[in-house]
C-alpha cells in the first residue's frame, strides 16, 4: 500500500495507546488523492482514534502520521473535520448559517464580525449540501440528517481538500442515509474522503476502499472487496458488522 505517490494521508509503523494500553499497532497505510475510504471495525477498535491522530488531536506513541506529507497540525487548514453532532448542545442559540460560518475561522480577518466574503462562502457551502432554504433556521430545530449536512457544510466552508467524517450516519434513517451518500459521492469528485463508519451497509456503491481496524489495520482496495464479498460478509443484515475472520476483536488475520 505504500507505493502510493504523494498520499493525502499516510501512516508509517504507527503505534498508539492510551496510558500504556495499546490501541493501534504497527499501522501502515497510504490514502491517495481522490480516494473514498471507509474505516470500519468493532467498537473500541480505534477507528475514531485513527481520525484524531490524522487531525493531530492525538499523537502516535511510535511511528508517524502525515497529511499532505506534513505533520497533521500543519495540514489542518486543508482538512475538513465532521464530528458527530450528538455531543453538541441542542439548545445552543445559533442558526444553520452561524454554524457553517464557523468553518471560515482561520481564513478571513480575525477581528470583528464576519465579512461578506465569508457569508457568501457559507451560503455556497449550505447550497452544496442542499440546505439553502434552511440557512436561518435554528440549528436545534433541524432534523438529524440536516444537522449532519450542516456540519458537512461547516467543514466545506473552510475549503478543505480532505474530508474526515466520524460516524456521519449514526442515528439516521435508511432513506436519509441514502441521500447522504449521494452527497458524499458528489463531494468525492473533488475531495478525498475518509469516513469512520459503524456499519458497512452502503459500502458497495460509493466507497472505493475499506480500512479494517482491529489492533492491526488492513486496507482493502475496492477491487478486493467486490459486491459479492460485501454480500457474503454483511449480506443477511447489512447493518450488522460481523466480527469474523476479516475484522476480529483480537486483530486482523488477513
Amino acid at each position: 500500500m505504500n507505493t502510493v505517490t504523494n498520499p493525502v494521508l499516510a501512516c508509517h509503523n504507527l503505534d498508539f495507546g492510551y496510558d500504556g494500553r495499546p490501541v493501534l499497532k504497527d499501522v501502515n497505510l497510504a490514502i491517495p488523492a481522490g480516494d473514498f475510504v471507509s474505516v470500519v471495525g468493532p467498537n473500541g477498535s480505534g477507528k475514531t482514534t485513527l481520525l484524531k491522530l490524522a487531525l493531530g488531536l492525538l499523537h502516535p506513541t511510535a511511528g508517524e502520521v502525515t497529511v499532505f506529507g506534513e505533520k497533521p497540525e500543519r495540514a489542518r487548514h486543508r482538512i475538513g473535520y465532521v464530528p458527530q453532532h450528538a455531543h453538541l448542545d441542542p439548545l445552543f442559540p445559533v442558526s444553520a448559517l452561524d454554524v457553517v460560518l464557523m468553518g471560515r475561522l482561520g481564513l478571513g480577518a480575525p477581528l470583528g464580525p464576519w465579512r461578506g466574503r465569508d457569508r457568501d462562502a457559507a451560503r455556497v457551502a449550505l447550497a452544496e449540501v442542499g440546505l439553502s432554504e434552511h440557512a436561518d433556521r435554528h440549528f436545534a430545530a433541524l432534523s438529524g440528517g440536516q444537522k449532519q449536512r450542516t456540519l458537512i457544510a461547516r467543514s466545506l466552508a473552510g475549503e478543505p481538500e480532505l474530508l474526515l467524517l466520524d460516524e456521519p450516519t449514526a442515528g439516521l434513517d435508511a432513506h436519509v442515509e441514502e441521500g447522504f451518500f449521494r452527497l458524499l459521492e458528489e463531494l468525492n469528485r473533488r475531495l478525498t474522503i475518509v469516513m469512520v463508519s459503524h456499519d458497512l451497509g452502503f459500502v458497495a456503491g460509493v466507497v472505493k476502499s475499506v480500512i479494517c481496524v482491529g489492533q492491526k489495520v488492513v486496507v482493502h482496495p475496492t477491487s478486493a472487496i467486490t459486491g459479492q464479498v460485501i454480500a457474503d460478509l454483511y449480506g443477511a443484515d447489512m447493518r450488522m458488522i460481523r466480527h469474523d475472520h476479516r475484522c476480529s476483536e483480537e486483530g486482523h488475520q488477513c
Partner: protein
Amino acid sequence: MLTPAFLGPLAAHAFLQYALLGGILVAIPCGLVGSYVVIRRISYIAGAISHSVLAGLGLVQYLRVVHGVTWLSPLGGAAVAALVSALVIGWVSLKLKQREDTVIGAVWAVGMAAGIVLISLTPGYAADLMSYLFGNILMLTPRDLILIGALGVAVVTVVTLFHKQLLAVCFDDEFASLRGVRTARYHFLLLGLTALTVVVLVSVVGIIMVIALLTLPAATANHLTRRLSHMMIVAALLCAGLTAAGLALSYGPDLPAGAVTILLTGALYFATALIKKR
C-alpha cells in the same frame, strides 16, 4: 411598579437614582457575559468565583482596619480574588478535566472560609458581611457607577472584536481549535470577563445570589431567542428590567432589594421554562 410610593422617593433621593442607574448599567455585562456562561455551561464556575470574592473583600477590610492600609478598595480586593479563582479553575479545567468539579467546590468553599475568618478577625465590621453576602444596591456610589459603566464598555468591545471565536469555542471547541483558534486563550478570556462581571454584580445582589442574576436572565432569553446576539440583547433588557423592578417593589415594604430581584428573576425563568416545555 412605578407607583408614587417609589417615584416620589426616587425623585427626592440621589441614592435611589444611583441604585436605579446601577441596575441598568450592570445589565450590559450581565446580559452579554451571562449569555456566554449559560451556553458554555459554566454556571458553577461563576458560582465558585463569586463565593471566592468574599476572601478578597475580607482581606481588604482586614488590612484597612487592622493594619491601616487605607488605600486598598474592597472592589479591588474582590476583583483580584475573582481573577485568581478564575485562573485556578481555568488552569485545572484545561489540564485535569476530570477533576474540574472538585476544584470548583474547593475554590467555592475555601474562598468563603477565608473571607469569614478575615472578617471575624476585623473588629466592628460584621455588618458588612451581610451586605457582601446579600448585596445592597442602595449603597452604590457615583464611583461604583463609573466602574460598572467602564466594565460594560470593555465587555462590549471584547465581544464585538472576538464574537466569532467566542461563539465557536462555546459551540464546539474541538472544531474551533482545528480551525486555528487558540481555544485556551478564549477560555481564559471568558473566565476573566465572568470574574469581573461577578464582582460588579456582587454590589447589586450579593455573593450568594450572583449566579442567579448572571445566568437566569440569559437562560430565560435562551428560551425566547434563537441566535446568540438576540439572546444577549434580551438578557440585558431582562436584567435591567428585573433589577429596576426589584428595587421599586422592595422599597415601599422595606424588603431587601437583591432578594426581591432574584425572586422575580427566578419566577420569570421558571415561567418561560414551563411554557417552552409545552
